[in-house]
């Protein structure tokens, strides 16, 4: 185990190797790993050629960011024209490549395009069957890759470019514009010396880590797998999405995806964050990662055409392109929403669904409230003030709101924002916001499902009744809905239909049970269905056994297509508790239920070689059974069950290419098809890769008077990172005596050397100041954070656990300064997922 972290953590204490990294330098570290793996031939060659887009040829005109910018950047609008971020149309280009290499200039933008042989062009029968041109925006971004539909729609006036159906390729990987050669070139700049300059990790230590990790592919061995595990701190950078992507690329070139013990695994901050995302708890996706409609989607047909991808691959390869079923998922979802009111004649009530015309992400919402554009907010299960970024801005925003509804089990910084330090009793009188505080049920007082990062949907039972006036969340929502509906019924309104027609067929409409909801999101047949192959019949009203049954003609209803199969006629699969694991791989097929289709490892076709035999015969996940002509295994094959390996169908069935994306084409990412190291928005050094392009060129910064950013010139010289402690669970545990006892007071972790410089001793009060605000807590002087040399400059990092604020046991007893850590963090976000940069901002430190 290798731990890479700005601090020597408790996890690091159990590691074989620890590398102390500068906060925000992760892409440099991972890019260096990619270079090391390629240079030392520690890559999975067959996997790379057959299961990734390494052999695909990229369009002429695409330029790598040697100067920090990819081709197509418009400095005026600060967005990229991504038309060159695409594959070349054509067939096998391996022969042409040989000639081209000689004259290939350094930049891939060079115009040395060999003539595509084109013999296969347009002859693919599957292409003929699919028919028609590529649909705009149909890049099939996988489960997690929902793009900001609204934001992108407004920026693209001209027609969106499409992926070519017949991609040019070179299986020798020698073509200078092959993805592999571009990848090699992109990371050739990430030398161990450069990694040291950017990350602060000494070269020999980096090489040790790179050697250890890539050693599993020594001499072409494919048996072992390696995993990358991260916590959400990795996402909290102005290039957070690209950090995760670099890890995914490293895993692809090493052949670690689709394999037991492989992959890139998120340790998320809450036991059900995965479930919340699956349910569409993000502004730009519907449940099951369907893209939200935007105003250009004038009808269902237009919408479905935009969001349904068509295959894009070498002609003699096959691609399942599972998102081609998008219309079935979307129509079944609309049937779940509007039932009988969703008919073929009214586009299955498509017009009832909101169209997203702008970015409604977290930081944007608070910014809009701060600007007086948002009048009210429902805050359930989150403490928005403490979460930040820039908690003071959020407090000032709430002061301007008309109303705030908080559903929580404890009073918190959001529900009592007027208690914030700096607001006097007189000031508080002038705050006109009406706050409705609704006591909610705690986790042990509710049943329902929770979905973990391995996508296991697990049912839990009620342990305790709700105390006092506390109500279940679904009861609160139901009663608000029923009252709003009654108002629309009695008073009408601009557009009452979406509210009046919403399906609400629960046994007790005031108190919908979560088991009824679970059955609803699993889905059911709305008329008798027959499988044409097996003649199996599902009767009207029966629960569906899986999403293969979903239809786009209104005969099925399903709230979340990926959850279809979790609650069938055989009962609640998600409540299963079988602990048998015959393969010994930790698959536990009968424990709860894993989406999709109870598959435990996604893309597990990639655990076999191209001929369908497991890479490791001792650890067999799935395999091709020649006798039955089907895929079978210890896990449910995540693949077309009868696709013969000879047909060369790609394992990454959710991508239109059928293969893993080392190159992320077109609008997959806002900031480039390959990740590039940019400095955090506040950084103590100039970007060593390209001094003229310091930060992510498409970073989203904010412009209110509250949005101030610090520089070293203003004396902000220390890098600050934030985190939670093992003893803490979000902000709840401030109210639990046990947890308060374990960490009795807030603290700031400070390197011994820095403390000595400033005359700070352990236990002294210190004040941390950023361009936004300040934070006061006790000094934890430690040897576990060392001073670092970054680009030749001595740099200190400090770390602050986020937890305490002004409500809780310690706070109510006046045992701390009642300041919130996120008063320090900047309002600046990642351009892909809109996650704020909570990690690696600049501060000053002094004795308080």
């Amino acid at each position: 185990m290798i731990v890479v972290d700005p601090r020597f953590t408790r996890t690091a204490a159990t590691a074989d190797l620890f590398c102390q990294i500068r906060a925000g330098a992760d892409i440099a570290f991972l890019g260096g790993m990619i270079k090391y793996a390629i240079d030392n031939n520690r890559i999975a060659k067959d996997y790379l050629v057959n299961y990734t887009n390494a052999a695909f040829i990229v369009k002429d005109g695409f330029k790598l960011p040697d100067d920090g910018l990819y081709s197509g950047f418009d400095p005026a609008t600060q967005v990229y024209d991504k038309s060159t971020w695409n594959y070349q149309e054509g067939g096998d280009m391996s022969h042409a490549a040989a000639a081209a290499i000689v004259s290939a200039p350094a930049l891939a933008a060079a115009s040395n395009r060999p003539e595509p042989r084109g013999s296969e062009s347009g002859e693919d029968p599957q292409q003929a069957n699919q028919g028609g041109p590529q649909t705009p925006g149909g890049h099939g971004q996988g489960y997690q890759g929902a793009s900001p539909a609204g934001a992108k729609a407004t920026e693209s006036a001209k027609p969106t470019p499409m992926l070519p159906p017949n991609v040019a390729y070179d299986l020798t990987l020698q073509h200078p514009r092959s993805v592999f050669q571009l990848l090699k070139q992109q990371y050739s700049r990430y030398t161990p010396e450069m990694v040291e300059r950017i990350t602060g990790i000494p070269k020999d230590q980096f090489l040790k880590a790179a050697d250890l990790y890539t050693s599993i592919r020594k001499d072409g061995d494919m048996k072992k797998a390696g995993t990358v595990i991260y916590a959400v701190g990795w996402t909290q950078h102005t290039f957070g999405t690209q950090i995760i992507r670099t890890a995914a690329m490293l895993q692809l070139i090493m052949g670690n995806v689709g394999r037991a013990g492989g992959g890139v695994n998120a340790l998320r901050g809450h036991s059900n964050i995965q479930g919340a995302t699956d349910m569409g708890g993000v502004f730009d996706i519907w449940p099951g990662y369907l893209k939200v409609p935007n105003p250009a989607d004038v009808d269902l047909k237009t919408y479905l055409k935009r969001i349904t991808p068509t295959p894009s691959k070498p002609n003699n390869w096959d691609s399942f392109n599972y998102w081609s079923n998008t219309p079935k998922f979307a129509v079944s979802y609309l049937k779940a929403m509007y039932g009988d009111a969703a008919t073929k004649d009214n586009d299955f009530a498509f017009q009832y669904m909101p169209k997203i015309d702008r970015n409604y992400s977290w930081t944007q919402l608070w910014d809009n409230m701060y600007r007086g554009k948002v009048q009210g907010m429902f805050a359930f299960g989150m403490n928005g003030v403490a979460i930040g970024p820039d908690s003071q801005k959020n407090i000032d925003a709430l002061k301007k709101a008309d109303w705030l509804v908080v559903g929580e089990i404890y009073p918190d910084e959001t529900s009592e924002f007027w208690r914030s330090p700096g607001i006097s009793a007189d000031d508080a009188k002038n705050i006109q916001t009406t706050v409705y505080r609704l006591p909610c049920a705690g986790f042990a007082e509710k049943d329902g499902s929770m979905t973990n990062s391995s996508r296991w949907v697990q049912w839990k039972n009620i342990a305790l009744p709700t105390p006092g006036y506390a109500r279940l969340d679904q009861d609160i929502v139901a009663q608000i809905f029923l009252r709003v509906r009654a108002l629309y019924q009695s008073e009408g309104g601009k557009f009452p239909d979406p509210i009046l027609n919403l399906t609400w067929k629960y046994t007790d409409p005031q108190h919908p049970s979560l088991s009824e909801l679970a059955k609803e999101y699993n889905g059911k047949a709305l008329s008798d269905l027959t499988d044409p192959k097996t003649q199996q019949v599902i009767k009207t009203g029966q629960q569906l056994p899986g999403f293969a049954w979903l239809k786009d003609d209104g005969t099925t209803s399903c709230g979340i297509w990926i959850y279809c199969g979790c609650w069938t006629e055989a009962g609640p699969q998600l409540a299963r508790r079988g602990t048998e694991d015959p393969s010994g791989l930790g698959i536990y097929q009968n424990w709860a239920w894993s989406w999709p289709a109870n598959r435990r490892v996604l893309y597990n076709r990639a655990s076999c070689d191209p001929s369908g035999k497991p890479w490791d015969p001792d650890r067999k996940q799935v395999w091709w059974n020649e006798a039955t002509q089907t895929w079978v295994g210890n896990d449910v094959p995540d693949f077309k069950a009868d696709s013969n390996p000879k047909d060369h169908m790609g394992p990454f069935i959710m991508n239109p290419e059928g293969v893993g994306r080392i190159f992320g084409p077109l609008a997959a990412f806002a900031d480039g098809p390959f990740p590039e190291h940019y400095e955090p928005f506040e950084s103590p050094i100039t970007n060593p890769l390209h001094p003229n392009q310091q930060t992510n060129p498409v970073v989203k910064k904010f412009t209110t008077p509250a949005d101030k950013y610090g520089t070293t010139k203003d004396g902000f010289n220390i890098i600050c990172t934030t985190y939670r402690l093992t003893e803490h669970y979000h902000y709840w545990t401030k109210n639990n005596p046990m947890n308060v006892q374990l960490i009795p007071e807030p603290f700031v972790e400070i390197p011994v050397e820095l403390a000595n410089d400033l005359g700070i001793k352990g236990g002294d009060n210190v004040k941390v100041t950023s361009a936004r605000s300040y934070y006061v807590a006790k000094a934890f002087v430690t040897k576990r954070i060392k001073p670092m040399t970054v680009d030749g400059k001595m740099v200190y990092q400090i770390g602050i656990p986020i937890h305490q604020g002004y409500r809780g046991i310690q706070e109510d007893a006046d045992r701390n300064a009642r300041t919130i850590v996120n008063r320090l963090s900047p309002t600046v976000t990642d351009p892909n997922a809109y996650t704020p940069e909570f990690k690696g901002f600049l501060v000053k430190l002094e004795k308080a």
Partner: protein
Amino acid sequence: MSQGTLQIRKISGHPGPVPGANVERAEQVCKMIDTTTCIGCKACEVACLEWNGYSFSETHFDNSYQTMPETQWNYWNLIKFNEHERDDGSMMLLMRKDQCMHCADPGCLRACPADGAIVQYSNGIVDFQQQNCIGCGYCVSGCPFDIPKFNPTTKKMFKCTLCSDRVSEGLEPACIKACPTGCLHFGTKDDMVGIAEGRAKQLRDHFGFDKAGVYDPPGVGGTGVIYVLHDATNPEAYGGLPKDPHVPLMVRLWKGPAKWIGNLAMAGGILGVALHYLRFGPKIVREQEDKERRDDRGGRP
């Protein structure tokens, strides 16, 4: 605590044989703590408090992740955090779960003068019986690990019971149940020593910890709680784990040779009296003296 269900092997301050000793045989139980896979999450601390019914007490930040400096009468299980720099400059964060070691030769029991205040069950668990405790604190001087703690309100001594109440019902101790990394194991002493030695060998052979080993100090007859340490030659680095713990000399002398010397002196005294009687016979009170005494008492005989 569990006298009803567990077989007692040794009793503090008790004359004569242990009632029912050797009547039935129980497995030696043991807790194995692998410090190399502990992440210091303190789940064991909370589990200990909750199972034993102790609640919140105020603590203070002390430049450490550690909850408090030492265990307390109502806080029996404490992870000790130690930042340790190796010779090559690399960091280690040593985290050791501190609690009663349940010595085979318990110094506390040896030192205790109160009949039945400390017992050792035949499964090896050393347990305090507060109803018999006289609060003298001698057990503190007997313990090489500084474990027994005084409750000033009840004036009784307390420490980890190895969840004797759970173990007697066939359950593992609460700390074991709560551990999320599996660094805590519970079973028979033989099994635990086997697992610990296997892990130590793994650390020596594959992870570059040449001095890895098992802490099961013979000076106290071995312990019912054993550790796997990255460096078994330097247990002091793990928050003051003694390198070669023994029951203190004074306690050994007092309850060992000294006790026999005392007994010998007592027997000698009786023997001396007897010899004196044999040699000099009974003391004869002379007539005159006897009369004077009777006069002093008012003439009564």
